[in-house]
């Protein structure tokens, strides 16, 4: 069911709100039957939803409560208007094309899926393993799933008596190895990551087994992860196709071509005619075929550009473009602009390469990343596809996904270098970086800069700035952390220093003579 999307001014929306229901006249023709519509103020985001009870041709004698201007053509009867949470016009589709912006009005269908609950992890586990995990839980320790499965195998092969002994030993051993209260886990994590970090090659550029896709690895990548850079130096995506398509080579190569960003310069020659002040765009046939673009696609893309007149010569297989103003400067500027005009593909993805796995399925690797738009493709498996841009994952999939992404990326980078770092340290780093609900870097800008204690911040970096600011604002310091207690010369609140001991004095026993 199509909906009507109108671009309008804030003032008009306010007027509609005051006089509802109302007849609203517009200066363009709308055909068709609409039940509902949306109003956008800035062409890109939709803020209001309207219920339409009728659309008819404009008649002068009709009683109108709202008019826009002269040259009116259609009357829309609006029966209800409501504020909605802002949604992007990109959620609407005209046929198969995604809506990019609404300049006057647009007839489009909202693409939506029914949101269903995620299947609970516990429902995927077989009953005996679950029971075993619960049994450990009751004893106050937790074990992972693969350990539970191994224990159950042991029960089969070695007998119940042996198995019981192992379970008991496990419980005591895990308890013995747990972190003690007030242990400085942060310091231990910092050392455990830092020490193997010194073993890393300073600069590694690795061709991760794929042609031409170059990925930053090693120390630069690890620094990038903990710095929470807005965009990594080599953003790449790993795209999985839905299980029904992933073994099909032709579908894979079609998806590759669909996502690869193709601009005019990739497939056409541009000739400048200085005498006539025109640009001739001559598509190269082989490249058109290779990138699966047709001449009408190019004309369509050119049609969305402003300030040019297009004269298609389809019989000769070329397009002539004329800037609306005759000047050499304009001609040159137009040529430069048209070179990078996107004809098809997803913006941000420079290259895409497919690679066959050992099991016969295909995976697509890309240079450049645009997670949101790739996940919306029909063939793409939207549950496995990911990018190495952590902040982008945070924006598209939420903070918890970003936390998992930090963990996975850091682990992969370290494993790549053959370094073993206990996962729990990386988990701590990931948890701290995602604590505030958005990704914060480790360092002055992020975690350390946001500490609540003035002295701890001053001890870290930019001492004077923090002290001066604290003085001006009248901040106080409760001396609960480590750094501030060292500064004032008190025992730190860690380990034994965190525990207050009170000596209970008994009456001195009579000395034996």
């Amino acid at each position, binding site marked *: 069911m199509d909906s009507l999307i109108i671009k309008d001014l804030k003032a008009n929306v306010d007027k509609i709100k005051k006089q509802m229901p109302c007849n609203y006249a517009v200066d363009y023709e709308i055909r068709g039957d609409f039940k509902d519509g949306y109003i956008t103020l800035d062409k890109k985001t939709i803020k209001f939803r309207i219920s339409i009870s009728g659309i008819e041709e404009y008649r002068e004698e009709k009683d109108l409560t709202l008019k826009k201007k002269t040259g009116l053509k259609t009357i829309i009867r609006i029966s209800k208007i409501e504020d909605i949470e802002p949604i992007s016009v990109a959620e609407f589709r005209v046929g198969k094309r995604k809506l990019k912006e609404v300049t006057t009005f647009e007839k489009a269908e909202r693409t939506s899926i029914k*949101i269903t609950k995620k299947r609970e992890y516990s429902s995927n586990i077989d009953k005996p393993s679950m029971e075993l995990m619960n049994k450990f839980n009751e004893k106050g320790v937790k*074990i*992972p799933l693969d350990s539970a499965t191994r224990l159950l195998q042991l029960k089969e092969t070695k007998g119940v008596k042996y198995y019981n002994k192992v379970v008991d030993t496990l419980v005591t051993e895990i308890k013995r190895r747990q972190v003690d209260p007030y242990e400085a886990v942060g310091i231990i994590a910092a050392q455990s990551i830092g020490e193997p970090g010194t073993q890393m090659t300073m600069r590694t550029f690795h061709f991760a087994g794929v042609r031409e896709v170059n990925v930053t690895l090693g120390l630069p990548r690890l620094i990038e992860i903990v710095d929470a850079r807005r965009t990594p130096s080599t953003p790449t995506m790993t795209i999985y196709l839905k299980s029904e398509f992933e073994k099909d080579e032709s579908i894979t190569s079609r998806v590759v071509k669909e996502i690869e960003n193709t601009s005019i310069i990739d497939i056409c020659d541009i000739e400048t005619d200085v005498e006539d002040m025109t640009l001739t765009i001559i598509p190269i046939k082989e490249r058109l075929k290779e990138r699966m673009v047709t001449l009408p696609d190019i004309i369509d893309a050119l049609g969305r550009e402003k300030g040019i007149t297009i004269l298609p010569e389809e019989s000769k297989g070329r397009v002539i473009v004329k800037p609306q103003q005759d000047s050499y400067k304009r001609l040159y500027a137009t040529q430069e602009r048209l070179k990078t005009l996107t004809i098809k593909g997803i913006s941000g993805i420079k290259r895409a390469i497919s690679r066959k796995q050992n099991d016969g399925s295909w995976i697509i690797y890309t240079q450049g990343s645009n997670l949101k738009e790739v996940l919306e493709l029909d063939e793409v498996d939207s549950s496995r596809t990911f990018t190495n841009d952590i902040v982008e994952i945070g924006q598209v999939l939420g903070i918890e996904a970003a936390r998992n992404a930090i963990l996975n990326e850091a682990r992969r980078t370290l494993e790549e270098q053959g370094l073993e770092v206990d996962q729990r340290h990386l988990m701590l780093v990931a948890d701290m970086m995602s604590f505030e609900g958005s990704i914060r870097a480790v360092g002055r800008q992020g975690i350390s800069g946001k500490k609540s204690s003035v002295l701890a911040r001053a001890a870290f970096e930019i001492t004077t700035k923090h002290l001066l600011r604290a003085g001006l604002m009248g901040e106080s310091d409760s001396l609960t952390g480590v750094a501030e207690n060292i500064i004032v010369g008190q025992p730190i609140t860690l380990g034994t220093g965190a525990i207050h001991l009170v000596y209970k004095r008994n009456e001195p026993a009579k000395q034996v003579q």
Partner: protein
Amino acid sequence: MSKFNVLHHELVPEHHVVEIKEEEKVLNALGITKDSLPKISRNDAALKTLEEMHGKIEAGRIIKIVRKSSTLGFTEYYRVVSNEVFK
């Protein structure tokens, strides 16, 4: 809503909204107050998808997250909905 379900992605763990009457129980078990819980911003993608199912989730509500962990099997984690916007 977009064409894919954020909650079904491998990287996204289970998100559950904690009932208001259960909140106190959760906080007592952890021995902390609400403002020392980790936060989840109100425009978080996973939270937005949860809202599609549960209706508006106000700031201050607690979200229970069940993570799959390679060291502990499953762990429960709690985040409180904050007013800040994800940057």
